[in-house]
């Protein structure tokens, strides 16, 4: 177990959006929480996996397979991160 405090949702949204923007080479402003990750220009399945890997590193969490492969939007990724940080810091 690592630290004890929960990560604020706003921080999670910001970090996830920045990671997506960086890996897909898109401006942060152009990414909304309900944007379909695979529908963003420049996205492919490899980039989605890289996004997940970077997010796991950033938050020091490990997402479950069924979570990763079922995710479609930035908002869903944020929800997964919230769930995982709660799980791993419980």
């Amino acid at each position, binding site marked *: *177990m690592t630290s004890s405090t929960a990560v604020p949702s706003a921080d999670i949204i910001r970090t996830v959006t920045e990671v997506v923007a960086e890996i897909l080479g898109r401006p942060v402003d152009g990414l909304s929480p309900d944007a379909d990750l695979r529908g963003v220009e420049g996205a492919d399945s490899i980039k989605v996996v890289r996004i997940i890997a970077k997010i796991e590193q950033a938050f020091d969490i*490990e997402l*479950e*397979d069924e979570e990763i492969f079922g995710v479609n939007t930035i908002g869903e990724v944020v929800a997964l991160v919230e769930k995982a940080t709660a799980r*791993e810091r*419980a």
Partner: protein
Amino acid sequence: MTVAATGQGAATTPRAATNQHYDLDPEIFARFLDPLRKYSSALFASDDDTLEQAQRRKLAWVAEQLGLTGGERILDAGCGWGALPLFMAEEYRCRTVGISPAPRQHAYIRERVAARGLDALVRTETTSFEQYEPEPGGFDAVTLLGSVVHMDDLDAVVAKIRRALRRGGTLYLSESCFRSEAIRRTFDERPGTDFIRHGIFGSGELRPLSELVAAAEGAGLSIRAVHDLTADYHRTIECWMANVRAASPALEEHDEGLTEQLLRYLETANAGWGYTTKHYALVCRKSR
């Protein structure tokens, strides 16, 4: 330990038979096991090794496989007479939880724990692993030495192990296996299979290694290593048989015909190694 006795009464279910065997008078096991009462394969380094030396070497080797440095939290599912939890607490100051459904084993472990002043480090629970719900992420290591053969739902067991492990935690699982899927199919078609599976190898589901690996993969664990311990188990059982022969008068006094019964199943188990069976250790990690 997967080489359970034959004919230990009229058990109605495999699990009852297993528990019945392990719940025999602990003094019987004291007659042929090493002083740690470790009822699984030892690890021999030379011709001169005594059984006790080889069992201690084995436990130190398991610690090495787990990467222990001291103070880790270990869950031992199928702890027998507590050889592993006591050793890891004493040698590595680990906090250990031993799970076993056999009440007499716990009574014995409690005595040993008290005698060695390890109360703060060793805890046991009298339950089956299927009934036990570990604290999620609560363990640095989980060990199953020859116990998964007694657990029916392999996928559920490995999923539970994964839940119990912290991220980066390690699983050490050793088990007697059918030598291949083809060998298992061959034995499944024979009427005598129940004797081999439930009589000789302890009540339970003997599986090929491939099935254990598939379950670990399916649960999302990383496979770190597979070790072949077959020759070591053969020699371990030879040591047990020598001890049974030497203790024959006491064993007969305890229960007439016990010597022959013990020798029969130990001999049968040892005859199968490399032909029908293998003994493997699987080391997995909860990691990417």
